[in-house]
């Protein structure tokens, strides 16, 4: 169930960030606050962007930062953050980004079901649009509740 990972504790709306690194820093901090990952994981996600570019902006307006689990993941988890203003994430044809979903995985299998639901959500333009425009956390939760 997507709500196991994306819920009141791990969703934030309308967060201000001055650039893509700060956006990942803030979305990653949610993972750290919830004990899902360590600060080193936030650094690794940012480094991934520096080394590999903006490939993790997977669909128009949505970035899915992630890094290898050895970089500091404690348990499988996700965080979701909508940005106050759209930000360009390095270079990507899917820029600018309005929605950041950080992914923390422990191996290649535990998170597959949740990833499948996330993929379903990302493939639904209307749902993605609704989440991007949400003013409050519960609006986001309502949209994501379809994916269970």
């Amino acid at each position, binding site marked *: 169930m997507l709500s196991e990972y994306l819920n009141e504790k791990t969703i934030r709306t309308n967060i201000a960030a001055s650039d893509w690194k700060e956006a990942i820093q803030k979305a990653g901090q949610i993972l750290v606050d919830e004990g899902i990952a360590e600060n080193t994981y936030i650094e690794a996600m940012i480094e*991934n962007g520096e*080394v*590999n*570019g903006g*490939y*993790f902006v*997977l*669909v*128009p307006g949505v970035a*899915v930062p*992630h*890094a*290898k*689990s050895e970089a500091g993941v404690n348990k499988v988890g996700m965080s979701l953050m909508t940005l106050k203003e759209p930000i360009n994430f390095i270079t990507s*044809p*899917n820029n600018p980004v309005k929605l950041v979903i950080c*992914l923390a*995985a422990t*191996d*290649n299998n535990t998170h*597959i079901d949740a*990833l*499948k639901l*996330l*993929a379903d959500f*990302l*493939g639904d333009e209307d749902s993605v649009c609704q989440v991007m425009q949400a003013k409050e956390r519960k609006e986001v939760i309502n949209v994501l509740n379809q994916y269970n």
Partner: protein
Amino acid sequence: MKIVCVCAMGLGSSLILRMNVEKALERLGVKDAKVEVADTGSARGANPDVIVSSHSFCEELADMNVPMVEVVNYTDIAYIEAELKEILSK
């Protein structure tokens, strides 16, 4: 036929890509294809018949001379389907 979805880590975006490549293959009625995920390092050793990935990785692996599907939107199944159809018809 082996299709390899490539990304930097092999655990996030490539998995989402694999799910959508499998959906595209289902729509095309292709039953004998195997879809795997790999990072750029292991992609070379995986002996793929087709590579599916985003621009920068396709560019990095261009010297492998393997047909490539370069995706922009990871969830655009129709696009993946059309590209695979074209490759498979050759």
